[in-house]
C-alpha cells in the first residue's frame, strides 16, 4: 500500500460494508480494483503534489476491466 503522508486518509475497497453506503465518484474509481488506492487531502495542492510524486516514482497504474471504457472513458485519457 502506498501512502506519502501520515495525515492522509487512505482507503482501499473490498470492505464488507462498502456496498451498503452511497459511493462517491472516487470510490467508484477504485472499487473492484486490486490494490486500488485513493488518498484524501484537505487541500488541492497537497493532492496534486502527492499524485505527481507518485507518478514520478512510476506508481500510477490504470486498471481496467472489460466494459469500463464505456463507463469511465477511453484508457488513453484515464491518466492525468
Amino acid at each position, binding site marked *: 500500500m*502506498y501512502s506519502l503522508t501520515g495525515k492522509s*486518509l487512505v482507503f482501499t475497497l473490498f470492505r464488507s460494508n462498502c456496498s451498503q453506503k452511497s459511493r*462517491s*465518484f*472516487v470510490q*467508484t*474509481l*477504485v472499487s*473492484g*480494483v486490486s*490494490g*486500488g*488506492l*485513493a*488518498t*484524501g*487531502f*484537505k*487541500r*488541492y495542492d*497537497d*493532492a*496534486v503534489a*502527492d*499524485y505527481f510524486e*507518485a*507518478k514520478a516514482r512510476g*506508481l*500510477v*497504474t*490504470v*486498471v*481496467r*476491466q472489460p466494459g*469500463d471504457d464505456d*463507463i*469511465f*472513458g477511453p484508457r488513453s485519457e*484515464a*491518466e*492525468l
Partner: protein
Amino acid sequence: MLRIVGPPVINYATHPNYVQHSGEENAPACLESQRVSPPPRPSYKREDPIAINPVIRNSRQPLKTWIDPLFLEELIASSRPFPDADLHALPESSQQLPSKSASQETAALNVNIDTHKLGTVNDVKTQTVMDGLAHSFQGLSTAGSSQHPQPPTLVAPPSPHTSYTRQKKKFYSVTVGKRCGVFSDW
C-alpha cells in the same frame, strides 16, 4: 370513432349497497370513559427574565426622589416632642407664631434650616424632622443600593449547531484505479 369515457358516476347517497358508517356505533362505551384528554403542551415561549426576577423587575421602577407632602406632615406631627402640648406652652419666641397648618410649618422649618438658627422650639422640631428625614433618606438609599446590585445581564440564546450542515471538501489523488488523477469529492 374513439370516445373517451370516464369512470361511471355512482351516487353513493342513493346506492342500495352503500351504508353510511359514522364509526361510533361500534365503539365500546368503556373506551369513552377511558378517553383521557392529552396533557397540555409545554409552552416553548421564552420566559422574560425581567418579569420573573424581582430584583430586576424592581429596578425598572424609578427611584423615589421626592417626598410625599402627606408623609412629611405625618412625620412632622409624629416628631413633636409634646404632641398634647399646645403652642401656648411654648416660649414666647414660638408663641409669636400663629397656629399654622403642617405645610406652613414645613415652610417655616425650611426657613430655619436655611438660616441655621438653632435654639428655639421650632429648631428642636427641625432637628427632629431632619433626623427623621435623614433616616428615611438613608433607608431609601440603602434600599436603592440593594435593588441595584448590578445591571441586569441577559443571557444570549445558544447558537445553532452547525456541525450537521457543515461539509468538508476533500481532494483525492487516485494513483491506482480505473482513472488516475486528482479528483475532488464532497
